[in-house]
């Protein structure tokens, strides 16, 4: 029987049997095949295959899949012996574009990788272009890029087969390297940052890769010999080497007409790493950001082990649609630990819109490294909470003292309290006795005192400065200025505070209320501690709630007449005082003092502390006599109880001195300031902040009493200590520089003053950025000194900047804003911009009257300015009451007060203009005497005044 016969019979039998149950098939086969085992075996095999439903042909994908798998091998399968002057050793790989061989070069003797492209070049023009591009590629010289030594063509029939000779790299592909070494995310990120560096180098030479993917990057274990120690280090991350840089372009874009097959193959093979714009197929719009996209996908793949889009098995058009339209799963949802920064970085690199990606591979690597260094990454629009979090992570040491102190505080207090409470509850028979409560309270006291002590080291200002600095430090040199400009609008102190407010305090308040609803005393204690902390940081609005809640909670549990209520009222009073609510503050302090007196007797330390608060509220309301009486009483009590060198006694001495100065009892004020300063130097030393503080108060006093030489000496001494102790750019140092400048401008040393004002301003801008309110005030100061020197146009520029800024930062009614408005008003008057000047004068005057009251020195200044403005614009009758009031008010501050001098002169001019020359001469003469006394005869102001007096006298005579 021929095979054809067997075949025909087998088919017949198969037809008969294929729908018969197997059990019955045997009988038929027995009967029909007889003694032909070949036929029987054939039919049985067919039946078996048929029943299985599978078989070689039953696989998914059918013939297409079979072809696909086999065609991958269908490239030139013979290994050439020689290509150009290179001897081929072995094939090391093959891909869509060509075959790679290991080869040897004779001279220089080295091992090279030889990539022979599949597609020939058929025209002269294309050949020239290839040679040109190859030359450009040869220029790439970076440790992260496989060096291309040579590019040439090998004749093959009537075409020329292009080949590249490259650095031979012993290494494994990126993904294999990462996987097999079990790289952590951090190691993977560092490795990818190195890839980015190399890509950036090529981009700067104008070369795009366009086919970046893990298999195009080999990682080489790097052995580094350090020059200093001569030791050999193995870099555990490895040095990536990017292959085929620019080859996609050389062989694809410019030669696409001849490379259809390569092209198509390439598209499908690397589609996952291709950017949407690349997939859109318009090579004209492609730029380096398509490589950034590929880097993003590589990051995604290396970190998560999968690709952002599942494109497997999809036709090219569908794959392109997916890449262009579908949002990939965020990497954080695939690998939860990558939520946050890494997710943001990867997401930004893979943005579908090129202009929303990183502009360069360098920016991507910068951000990766920022993340690795725990600095803020730029991919974010930086939210406050984010900046704080990054800042906290990076400055772990500082954090203990700063941000985390709040967490520690809250957790610590709460934790300890919970412990206490459960201890109390365990001992249930005693739990509600007074003794137990007292014990609990004592323990809580010590806990929260400790926490409060920690808090005193927290400085939101410092925190803000560090936040800003860390951002700038992290920026690449080239972009630092730009970043700095953008950060100008941010007040970092506020940022720090707000972040704390939202992240820590609000949550802490909630936690306290919920956790301790059943333990009212614990809750009260915690509320009070929180309120105090908030106040220390200047978050006054938020502090008010817990502060008053604490009073209520204590009163309910312990009755109004308890030290706890008194303490809580005192804290609340302090809060009201710093919130400028002086009357309410006075009431709280008084109530606290009454309770302490009732419980502990007259002049107990508790009562004295509370009375100090009452006195302060008097002083702030301008009730100087009452303030002095009370401060005197507190000081006496403290001297008696605590001794003259106690910190509180010294503080009281200073407080009394300030009150006396307010009430123009300058002599006693002076001696008390000196006493306080001397004792502070002895008690705390020269280089202590408390000494600096009292020194500053004494210096202000010396300015008031026109003791400029002594003021100068004092401030210079303080400044020297501060420069040494704190450095030139410390906020306190800058504050002293500012004071010194103020003394110098007062005594007419304008140029020195200007230099110091500028130093101060520059230092503060460095610390806080230009938008900060302190900086704006210093900007105003610089305007002031420029104006004094007659540079009024330059002055106007600074004044306006200050005023506009302060309005925005502090609001229109803030005293600093009003000062700035007043200064600008005076300058505009000088510049004869009368309408605006008048408006601002009125604004400053009314604002100060409302906020500070009629007797405040700043209000007097506004009164004087109003008078001056009205006089200057010829409204003599309207000016009169203002100038008279100013003179009266300033006279109360001392015979030689600078305000009095100005008021005397100005009122003198008014009298002169009114034709009342005798009065005019008398007023100006008084001013001249005072100025000669305080400023000396050579001071420009003194000279001017003398000249004016002469003119009036002349008028009198003539």
């Amino acid at each position, binding site marked *: 029987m021929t095979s054809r016969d067997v075949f025909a019979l087998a088919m017949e039998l198969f037809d008969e049997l294929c729908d018969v149950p197997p059990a019955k098939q045997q009988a038929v086969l027995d009967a029909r095949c007889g003694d032909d085992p070949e036929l029987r075996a054939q039919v049985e095999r067919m039946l078996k295959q048929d029943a299985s439903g599978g078989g070689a042909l039953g696989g998914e994908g059918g013939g297409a899949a079979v*072809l*696909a798998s086999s*065609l991958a091998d269908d490239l030139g399968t013979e290994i050439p012996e020689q290509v150009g002057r290179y001897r081929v050793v072995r094939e*090391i790989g093959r891909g869509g574009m060509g075959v790679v061989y290991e080869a040897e070069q004779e001279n220089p003797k080295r091992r090279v990788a030889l990539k022979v492209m599949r597609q020939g070049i058929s025209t002269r023009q294309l050949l020239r272009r290839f040679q040109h591009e190859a030359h450009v590629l040869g220029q790439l010289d970076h440790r992260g890029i496989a060096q291309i030594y040579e590019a040439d063509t090998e004749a093959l029939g009537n075409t020329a087969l292009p080949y590249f000779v490259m650095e031979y790299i012993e290494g494994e592909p990126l993904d294999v390297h990462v996987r097999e070494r079990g790289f952590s995310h951090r190691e993977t990120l560092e490795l990818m940052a190195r890839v980015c560096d190399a890509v950036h180098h090529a981009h700067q030479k104008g070369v795009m890769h366009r086919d970046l993917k893990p298999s195009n990057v080999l990682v080489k274990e790097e052995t580094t010999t350090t020059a200093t120690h001569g030791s050999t280090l193995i870099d555990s991350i490895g040095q990536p080497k990017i292959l085929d840089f620019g080859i996609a372009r050389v062989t694809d874009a410019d030669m696409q007409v001849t490379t259809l097959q390569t092209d*198509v193959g390439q598209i499908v093979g690397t589609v996952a790493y291709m950017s949407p714009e690349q997939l859109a197929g318009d090579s004209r719009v492609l730029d380096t950001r398509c490589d950034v996209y590929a880097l993003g996908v590589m990051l995604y793949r290396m970190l998560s082990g999968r690709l952002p889009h599942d494109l497997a098995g999809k036709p090219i058009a569908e794959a392109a649609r997916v890449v262009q339209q579908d949002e990939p799963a965020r990497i954080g949802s695939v690998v939860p630990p990558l939520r946050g920064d890494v997710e943001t970085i990867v997401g930004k690199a893979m943005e579908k819109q090129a202009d929303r990606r990183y502009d360069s591979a360098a920016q991507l690597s910068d951000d990766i490294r920022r993340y690795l260094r725990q600095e803020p990454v730029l991919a974010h629009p930086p939210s406050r909470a984010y900046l704080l979090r990054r800042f906290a992570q990076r400055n772990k040491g500082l954090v203990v003292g700063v941000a985390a102190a709040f967490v520690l505080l809250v957790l610590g207090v709460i934790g300890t309290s919970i412990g206490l409470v459960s201890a109390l509850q365990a001992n249930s028979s005693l739990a509600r006795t007074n003794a137990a409560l007292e014990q609990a309270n004592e323990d809580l006291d010590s806990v929260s005192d400790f926490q409060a002590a920690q808090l005193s080291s927290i400085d939101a200002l410092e925190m803000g400065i560090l936040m800003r600095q860390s951002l700038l430090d992290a920026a690449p040199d080239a972009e630092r200025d730009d970043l700095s400009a953008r950060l100008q609008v941010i007040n970092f102190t506020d940022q720090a505070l707000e972040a704390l407010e939202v992240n820590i305090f609000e949550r802490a308040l909630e936690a306290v209320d919920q956790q301790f609803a059943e333990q009212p005393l614990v809750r009260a204690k915690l509320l009070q501690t929180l309120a105090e902390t908030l106040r220390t940081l200047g978050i006054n609005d938020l502090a008010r709630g817990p502060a008053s809640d604490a009073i209520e909670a204590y009163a309910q549990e312990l009755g109004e007449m308890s030290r706890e209520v008194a303490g809580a009222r005192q804290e609340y009073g302090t809060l009201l005082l710093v919130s400028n609510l002086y009357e309410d503050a006075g009431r709280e302090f008084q109530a606290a003092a009454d309770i302490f007196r009732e419980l502990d007797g007259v002049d107990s330390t508790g009562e004295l502390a509370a009375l100090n608060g009452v006195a302060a509220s008097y002083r702030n309301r301008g009730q100087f006599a009452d303030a002095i009486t009370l401060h005197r009483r507190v000081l006496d009590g403290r001297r008696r109880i605590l001794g003259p060198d106690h910190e509180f006694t010294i503080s009281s001495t200073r407080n009394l001195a300030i009150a006396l100065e307010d009430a123009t009892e300058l002599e006693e004020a002076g001696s008390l300031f000196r006493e306080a300063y001397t004792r502070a130097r002895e008690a705390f030393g020269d280089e202590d902040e408390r000494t600096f503080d009292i020194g500053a108060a004494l210096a202000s006093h010396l300015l008031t009493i026109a003791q400029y030489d002594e003021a100068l000496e004092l401030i210079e001494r303080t400044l020297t200590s501060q420069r040494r102790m704190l450095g030139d750019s410390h906020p306190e140092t800058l504050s002293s520089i500012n004071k010194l400048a103020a003394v110098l401008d007062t005594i007419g040393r304008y140029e020195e003053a200007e230099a110091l004002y500028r130093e101060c301003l520059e230092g503060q801008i460095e610390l806080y950025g230009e938008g900060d309110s302190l900086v704006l005030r210093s900007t105003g100061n610089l305007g002031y000194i420029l104006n004094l020197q007659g540079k009024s146009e330059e002055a106007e520029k600074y004044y306006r900047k200050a005023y506009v800024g302060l309005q925005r930062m502090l609001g229109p009614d803030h005293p600093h804003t009003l000062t700035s408005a007043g200064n600008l008003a005076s300058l505009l008057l000088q510049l004869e911009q009368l309408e605006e000047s008048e408006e601002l004068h009125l604004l400053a005057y009314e604002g100060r009257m409302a906020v500070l009251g009629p007797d405040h020195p700043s209000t007097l200044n506004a009164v004087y300015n109003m008078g001056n403005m009205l006089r200057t614009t010829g409204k003599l009758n309207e000016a009169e009451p203002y100038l008279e009031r100013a003179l009266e008010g300033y006279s109360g501050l001392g015979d030689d007060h600078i305000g009095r001098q100005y008021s005397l002169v100005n009122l003198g001019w008014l009298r002169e203009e009114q034709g009342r020359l005798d009065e005019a001469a008398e007023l100006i003469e008084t001013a001249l005497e005072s100025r000669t006394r305080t400023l000396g005869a050579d001071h420009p102001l003194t000279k001017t005044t003398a000249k004016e007096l002469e003119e009036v006298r002349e008028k009198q005579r003539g």
Partner: protein
Amino acid sequence: MTGSDDHAGDRAGASPEGDATLLLSRLERGEEDAAEQLLPLVYQQLRAIAGSYFRGQRSDHTLQPTALVHEAYLKLIRASDQQWSDSSHFCAVAATAMRQILHDHADAKRALKRGGPDARKADLEVDHLTTPSGERSVDVVDLDDALGRLSELDPRQARIIELWFFGGLPVERVAEVLDVSSRTVERDWRRAKAWLNAELAGGDE
């Protein structure tokens, strides 16, 4: 060049697309020589696409012959916006082309087996490089041999296999192309498949 060329993957090809479109329409009208002239073009496209699929393909995902043929069709006429006409005639040409590709490829491999040095490969291009496994691992030479024998023994069965296996045509459409009854195609198809599978299973017995 005519038509828009900004569609995904639609790069200019060596094949003049105008000709391809023309050939296709002639094919639709049943002009015999159109199929013959179209074959090399389809061959080129399919070979490129199929080869490329391999690199993006994972063994656990499906590559459908229809998708491959569809893509080749689109590339040939360079009009992704045009409705896929689902032409049986085109599928038939495509199936022939694929059969031809398989045969050429098998020839190359036979030559290699006869004496070419077996290249030792390093995993330079490992990305996605997964060897198709399990039931799909058909030896191309064996398959080509088996198909060759089948077409000698029963050309119609062989053609049915081509249309189904490579062209992705269902029974009814194969019947249409071959102008025989569905019943006949179904019977031959089942027979041929069982026979080929039995042939290819070979030594597994």
